[in-house]
Each structure stands twice: as C-alpha cells, then as structure tokens.
C-alpha cells in the first residue's frame, strides 16, 4: 500500500509541469551560471554575507539593536537554510529514479522496489552533503544557535560561502588546484626542512638558549625563520645555531621564489583559458549570438562591415593561434579553439540561446565537419556555410546547413549584372548593402494585430513612398507572392517585403506600432 502510494506520488511529480518548472527555476538560480538572473541572486547572497559579517565585527565592542540581531539570526539564517535545502533538493531527482525503477521492473517482470531508488537518491544527496561547499553552507547556518556562543565563530564560514558567488576566487583556487603536485612537493620540502632545522636547533641550543624550552619552541622558530618573517622573539645564540639559521633563511628564500614562480607560471598558462571562459560565459547569457568559425578573408570582411551591428553578440573560433592574435588586435572577440570539436561547441548555451553558426573556413571538408558537429549537438543551431565549389553544395545540404554561400557564384552574377544591366547593378548594389536611399526590409506580422486582416490596398504603400515588393506566406513551404494584388489580405505570420527610404519604413512602423522588424 505504502509502496503504491510512493510510486503514485513519484509519477505525479514526474508528470507535473508545475513541479518541473519550480525545480528548474530553483536549479537555474542556484546552479546555472548561464541563467541571466543568477547574477542578481548571487549579488543578493553576497550582500547578506557582508551584512552578517559586519554585524559580527561591530557587536564585538558595541551593543547592537534587537532588530539587527533578529535580522541576523532569523532572516539571514532562514535564507541560508532555504538555500541549503534548495541545493540538496535540486541535486538529484527521486521521482525520475522511481519511474526508471518501475520501467525496469515491468520490463524484467519483477517486483517494484521503491527502496532501491530511494537509497540511490539518498546516497547521492549524502555525497553532496559531504562536499566542502555543502559543509561550508551548513557551518554558515550554525551561528544562529545562540545558546552556544562559540558557534558565533562559524560566521567566518559565511566568508567562505563567498566562494560560491565570486568567480575570481574560484578561478584562483582552480589555478592553484591545477598545480597541486608542485605545490604539495614544495609543502613536503618545507615540512622536511622546518622539522630538520627545528630538531637541529633544539639539539644545539636547548641548554644554551633560554628561549628554547621544548621541541615546539624549536619548530616555531624554524617556521618563523624559514618564512623570512623573523619575529626576533627567539634567536640563536650559538655558532652552530646561527649556521642552521643561515641555511634555513637561504632555503626559505628559495622556497618562496619557487612557490611564486609556480603560481605565476600557472596563471600565465591558464590566462588565455580564463579569458576565453569569460568571453563564452558572457555570450551564453545572451538570447541570441553568433559563432563564426575561421578567421579568413571572408570573416574579416564580414566583421569589418557588421561587427558593430552584431555588437558583442558574436565570437570567432579559430584554430591558428596567430590568426586569433590578429583578430584580437583588430578588436574582435576571438578564441583559440577547434570548432569541429564536440566539446568546444558544447560549451555554448545550446539549450536557451538562439545560436547562428557561420562556417567560414577556407576548407570545405572542415566546414562540413563543423556543420555536422553543430547540427549533431542541436538541430536548433542555424548554420550558414561557405562552399568553395558547386560540387560541395549537396554535401552541405546533407550535413544540415540551413544556408550555403558560394562567393564565386555571387561574384560571377554581380559581374554579369554589371555588364548587362549597369544601371540596375548600382541599384541592386545599394539595396544589397542597405544604403539609406533604398532599404529592402522585411516586416513580420507574427505579433501584429494591426496588420493582420488588412489588404495591400488599405496599407497605401504609394502614399507612404514605399514599394510593396512581395508577400511571403507563413510556413516553411509558404508561397511567395511577388507584387501582390491590391485585394490580397494579410494573414498572421506573413512577411511583407517592402522597399523605400529608411525614414519611410520607420514611419510605416510608427503607424503599425506592433510591427516587428526582423
């Protein structure tokens, strides 16, 4: 009976859209670095921590009003507690595990065990609870228990909690972690020299030096000396002791230099990676952005004309380091990576952002591979690829490219037009580069109630100094009506193709305010 109830409850949670939405929202706030509102949550938590620590420091010497105490004990702690519980909650999904168990049990024709998936989930949650960050979170809640004043010192764990919300400290720790082996080796060397020097000074001066009473004094002196701090409260009095001092001072300086060089070299190694991560993180917060693969002539030309228009919503991925440096020097956002690699494209926010990928390397094989790689990760990514030869077009289509650009074909046709229709060539050229006098623009009717249902005649294009060139009916295979007849009625999701001066189109927009420009 109980098992049945639990299973039913698990299925209820599994099918509940509301539960899913709430959990996803919590998860986004707590864990998803790409979620656009997470930064506000982080700022809020950092503010709480700062306020809480300020109260702790202030109340050491000054009495604090009751309401401040109340705020610190109940409000701050409750928020920390909710956050703690929230993190445990979103760590894994019990209902998914139960549903999986039911599926497996039915398939294998065996009894359903609710305990097995529950145990798995509890194990997972326990594993999370024992992680350093979860322990810090818990310890940061404890100071609220006032009967034990000693717990107040745990407020310091609220400082450690800052690690969760500040990327730079995390990145610093990450860099140190990458040099774990070198740093541990140096630490062992430090312990070895300190202990050896401590024993030596103890042996040489225990009877001569009144400040050295125990081995602890000797070790304390050795550590203070090797670190080059040298308080001076204990100093050697014998010649042997001074020799030991000299040796450990030199070892100390060498060791500090080693540690510094290890950290600095580690930073310089990781600097590019850190910068790249920052660029990708920034980009992932945007609703739509563009990934440009390859920094060749075509990309240069594209960015020369349109980088400003796309503002900060693009990134160039190039696997030639020199070209990347060149792009950065030109003021473009570029990273040194191989766009054909699965892991590289996976770093982008494929789930939430609308991504357009331009495969513009000079190599068809690389472009096709990049196209396949992007499309295999998400069909949602729009791919515009450059094809060098006509023979490749079919392959690009099979790979899933949404649009294929053939520079030679475009140029050939432009040349042909320049010879056969020189006047029109100028006109089309102006339209193509969107010159002010002749803008060819699209007007989407997707959310415009004002245009839907109107006829072409009613829109009085001529009066507004506009030309209605055509009408694209909605849908993938929607019909394109060139020069639509006056009685044609506009329908929802249609796209109007109009030509005119920018000011005329702006005016048209003002009349039909809900008109959305593509």
């Amino acid at each position, binding site marked *: 009976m109980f098992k049945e109830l639990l299973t039913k409850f698990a299925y209820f949670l599994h099918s509940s859209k509301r539960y899913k939405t709430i959990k996803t929202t919590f998860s986004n706030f707590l864990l998803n670095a790409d979620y656009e509102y997470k930064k506000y949550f982080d700022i809020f938590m950092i503010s709480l921590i700062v306020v809480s620590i300020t109260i702790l420091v202030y109340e050491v010497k000054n009495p604090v009003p009751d309401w401040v105490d109340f705020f610190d004990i109940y409000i701050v702690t409750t928020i920390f507690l909710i956050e703690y519980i929230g993190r445990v909650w979103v760590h894994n999904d019990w209902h998914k595990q139960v549903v999986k168990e039911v599926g497996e049990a039915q398939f294998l024709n065996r009894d359903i065990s609710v305990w097995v998936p529950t145990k798995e989930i509890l194990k997972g949650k326990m594993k999370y609870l024992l992680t350093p960050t979860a322990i810090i979170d818990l310890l940061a809640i404890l100071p609220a228990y006032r009967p034990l004043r000693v717990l107040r010192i745990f407020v310091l764990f609220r400082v450690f909690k800052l690690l969760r919300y500040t990327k730079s400290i995390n990145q610093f720790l990450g860099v140190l972690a990458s040099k774990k082996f070198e740093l541990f080796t140096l630490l062992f060397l430090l312990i070895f020299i300190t202990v050896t020097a401590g024993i030596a000074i103890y042996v040489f001066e225990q009877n001569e030096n009144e400040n050295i009473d125990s081995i602890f004094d000797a070790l304390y002196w050795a550590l203070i000396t090797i670190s080059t701090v040298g308080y001076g409260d204990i100093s050697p009095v014998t010649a042997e002791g001074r020799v030991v001092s000299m040796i450990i001072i030199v070892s100390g300086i060498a060791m500090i230099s080693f540690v510094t060089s290890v950290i600095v070299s580690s930073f310089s190694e990781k600097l590019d990676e850190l910068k790249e991560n920052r660029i990708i993180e920034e980009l992932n917060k945007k609703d739509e952005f563009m990934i440009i693969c390859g920094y060749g002539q075509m990309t240069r030309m594209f960015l020369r004309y349109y980088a400003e228009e796309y503002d900060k919503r693009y990134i160039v991925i190039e696997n030639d380091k020199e070209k990347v440096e060149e792009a950065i020097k030109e003021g473009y956002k570029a990273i040194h990576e191989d766009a054909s690699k699965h892991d590289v494209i996976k770093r982008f926010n494929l789930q939430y952002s609308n991504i357009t990928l331009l495969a513009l390397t000079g190599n068809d094989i690389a472009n096709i591979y990049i196209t396949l790689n992007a499309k295999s990760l998400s069909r949602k990514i729009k791919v515009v690829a450059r094809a060098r030869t006509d023979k490749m077009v079919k392959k690009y289509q099979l790979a899933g490219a949404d649009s294929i*650009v053939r520079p030679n074909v475009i140029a050939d046709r432009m*040349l042909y037009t*320049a010879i056969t229709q020189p006047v029109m060539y100028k006109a089309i050229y102006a339209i193509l580069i969107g010159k002010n006098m002749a803008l060819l623009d699209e007007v989407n009717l997707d959310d415009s109630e004002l245009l839907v249902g109107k006829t072409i005649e009613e829109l009085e294009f001529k009066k507004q100094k506009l*030309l209605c060139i055509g009408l694209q009916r909605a849908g993938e295979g929607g019909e394109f009506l060139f020069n639509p007849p006056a009685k044609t009625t506009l329908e929802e999701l249609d796209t109007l193709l109009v030509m005119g001066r920018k000011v005329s189109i702006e005016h048209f927009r003002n009349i039909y305010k809900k008109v959305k420009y593509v």
Partner: protein
Amino acid sequence: MFNRKALMFGYSNTTKFLAENLTQELHYLVIIVDDDESYQAAKKAGYRVKLLDITDDDVLEELDVEEDDYLICVMKDHYINVFLTLSLHSLFPKTTIIALSDSYHATQKLKMAGATRIIDLYQVSANRIHNILTKPVATKLIEQLFSPEEDFSFKEMLIPENSVLDGIMADDFDFSTYGIILVGMIDKRLSNQFIFITSGLENRFDVGDTLVCIGYNNDLEKFETYIKGA
C-alpha cells in the same frame, strides 16, 4: 548593348560563366590570357581566345577597344590584375573596366588603379551572409533576380521616341496592371543619376529616360513592347 564588345583578361570559372551567359548580350567576346596552358584550355573549350603579353603596353594598345566596350579583369594573380587595370585605364581612360577582387586591400588598389566597378568576392559574400541572417525573404528574392536561369528578373528599358509613356508622370501610371514593379529610373530631366522611385521626387517619363523594373520575364518583355508602341 548588342554592338558592344567585352575583352576578358584571365581564364577561370568566372570567365567561363561570363562567356557562356553573355553571348546573347554582346556581339563580340574574347578571352585574353598570358600563358599557354590557359590558352590551350580555353581554345579546347571552344572559346574565342588570344595569347598576349598583358604587361606590355604596346601589345595592349593594339587591341580594338571602343569607349562603349567592357574590359573585364579577372586575372588569378591580384598583382597582375591591379597592374593590368592600371595599364588599361591609362590606355583607354573612357572605357568601362570591371575588376574582380579577392581582398579588401586589393579592392582599394583596384580603385586607385582606375577600375570603374570592382566586385569584391568577399564583400559581396559578407553582405549576403548578413542579408541571409537579417532578411531571408529579401535575400531569396535578390538571389532570384541575379540568377540568369530564373524566369524572374529586372530589366532596364529606354523610353523610345513616340512612346506611349512620353510625358506621363510616374505617380499617374499603374505598373501593377502589367504585373511589374518600377524600382527606379534615370530621369534625364533631373539628372543622369539613377533615382529610386521611393525617393519622393516627382518623376516624369520622357523620351531617353531609362526605367528599371522587376517582374517575370514575360511581363517585362510585354511591357517593353508596350512602351515602344506609339
């Protein structure tokens, strides 16, 4: 148009495309190359071809070039292309020189060398990509207009003597009855520049003006026949 000649310098896919598509438009078309391999290949393919030292001004001077002709520079080597453009411009300053460029810097040099029109391979492609992203429907239409294979295009039409259009104001004429759209014109009364019909100026059709219309080829031809009628 039909009494004009085109001299194309260089043998490539572009030259082949133009040679195949321009036979109806021009009365003489020749490919000029500077290496034997290209000469043999072009000859074998059936094109009219000449083998010349294009760096020699004396040789170029002997070419039969009129002011109305076209000189098309599509040499593979962009150094030679710029040099050739410069030579041709100094020898035939009034003739239209159309050059193909494959870089921003080459485009600047070709401009300085005196090319009348420069088609920058990458600039047109960059524009195309931008248009695909921002105006997909418009891009598709422009693509159709540019494609010689499509039955949908644009046409320049000269208003002849005794045309039915002579003296009519542009706003008073309904082009939609003919299924075409008037995009713009050269209104000689105002200037020799192309003016978009949406520019807000009051244009009048007069003999000698050039109209630029878009539409289906059949409709465009029917309209051209119509305006020629008295």
